[in-house]
């Protein structure tokens, strides 16, 4: 048994070392960096909360977090409101043998490259693009106009992606719901609306919450969509982080912002923890 246990550790070791070296250690190093400071072009390695104080006092840093939270909340709510009816219709109204195909079709654009997906929304929303062209054809606008480079465009790009994701998670929890539950509700005198509100909705809430949490985490950490579609009127937190790295080479400040982003995600996790079980993956 002793030899066996040593063998088990041996098998586990490569994965463990990889995760510790290239995941855990870098996070610790980043945490240390966030408590150091860049002065001029030099890194000063004495402990200080300078970067965090800067975050609290410089309005454009704090604003980027607020912008991120606003955009993420908007995206999450709109995506759930659009995806739930779609998942419901797919699960309840579409004949069983078509459901699989309908679902595969609903998430097909999922498989376009992430960078390309934002770019293709630029094709739709930009000046002279499909949308502007269509609105001119039906006479709603006279001149070509641009719908890109603002917060609305960022939200559209995000919602497009997360409607697909949420449709999947909500559909999965809807098909797990035994039909007998609703029949029982009907037998006990509940109409379709009451049975939906008191039976279907609470029981599919875990699916909604898993999707909402994924939406929140992926959305608030994304750099590409706001960078391509959002223009430069306002920055989201990941854009501010990237700016600290690529324009200013201020790694301590970027690290502090990344720690703040991580803290926000952890808070979201704690808020939804009772619905999320990673074991069920």
């Amino acid at each position: 048994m002793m030899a066996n246990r040593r063998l088990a550790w041996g098998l586990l070791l490569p994965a463990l070392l990889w995760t510790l070296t290239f995941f855990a250690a870098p996070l610790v190093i980043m945490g240390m960096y966030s408590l150091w400071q860049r002065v001029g072009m030099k890194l000063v390695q004495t402990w200080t909360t300078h970067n965090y104080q800067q975050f609290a006092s410089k309005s454009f840093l704090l604003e980027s977090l607020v912008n991120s939270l606003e955009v993420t909340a908007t995206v999450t709510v709109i995506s759930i409101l659009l995806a739930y009816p779609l998942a419901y219709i797919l699960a309840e109204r579409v004949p069983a043998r078509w459901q699989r195909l309908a679902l595969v079709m609903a998430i097909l654009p999922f498989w376009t490259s992430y960078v390309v997906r934002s770019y293709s929304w630029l094709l739709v929303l930009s000046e002279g693009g499909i949308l502007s062209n269509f609105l001119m054809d039906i006479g709603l606008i006279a001149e070509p106009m641009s719908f890109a480079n603002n917060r609305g465009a960022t939200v559209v790009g995000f919602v497009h992606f997360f409607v697909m994701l949420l449709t999947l998670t909500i559909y999965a929890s809807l098909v797990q719901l035994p039909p007998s539950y609703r029949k029982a509700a009907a037998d006990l005198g509940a109409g379709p609306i009451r049975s939906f509100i008191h039976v279907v909705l609470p029981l599919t809430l875990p699916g909604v919450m898993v999707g909402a949490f994924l939406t929140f985490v992926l959305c608030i950490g994304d750099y590409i969509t706001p960078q391509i579609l959002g223009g430069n009127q306002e920055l989201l937190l990941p854009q501010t982080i990237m700016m600290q790295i690529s324009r200013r080479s201020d790694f301590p400040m970027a690290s502090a912002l990344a720690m703040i982003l991580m803290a926000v995600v952890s808070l979201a996790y704690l808020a939804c923890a009772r619905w999320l079980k990673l074991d069920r993956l």
Partner: protein
Amino acid sequence: MNIRALPAALYVLLLYGFIFLPVLVLVLFSFQESRLPVPPFDGPSLAWYRAMLADDRLMDALVNSVLVGVVSSLVAVTLGFLAAYALARHRLPLAGLLRGLLTAPLTISYLIIGMGLLITFNSLGVPKSLWTIGIGHVVINLPLCFAIVYSQMGAQQAHAERAARDLGAREWQVIVLITAPMLWPALFASFFLSLTFSWDEFIIAFLVSRFDVTLPVEIWSMLRSGLNPKTNAIGSFVFLISFLFVLLLDLVVLRKRPA
């Protein structure tokens, strides 16, 4: 179809329209003849696909993406499988904690993982290359592979493993000849899922690369020149490849599994 089904049908149609609109526009205008991928459509023409194939940087990036994807996915599946075997078949102290550590990267944004790696490589003086991108992609795919394989390790394989051991097989023979073949759908699924994620991953590759880049990073730098049908062409091409990955995964793995 009765009158009550109409709003539902309309809703589905509208939402599918929303979901497909950008992809259709992307693919349609990849066949544009002129220099701008906006209406009116004046194709079909394959000119921009020819331009794409003639673009050496783009083709290098494509090869790099395949190399990084295949190698990093193989490493991720191997490490994930061995760890899953160790944790599922042996009682180890702190097993729950170890499982938590191995799956922890799933909960952290790619941006933060990439930044941590960038800072670490910088302070150690490790040069940025395809290797550093590959290291990052193993970090994000290892937890996925581990979780998938671990969840598929059931009692059925354990019985077969015990039988093999009783018949005198050594531990490595059990792993290679019994466990791995019995788990091949899970291993295959992990590999292709990793490949898909690596193939599409941008931010880590962007942060820890320098001269040799992967395809998403190269496409990113093409975007600086604005709207361009060549970007449509490579975008449609990437979509086709990703779609084939998924189709293959679906046909080989998911169909074989008893419902």
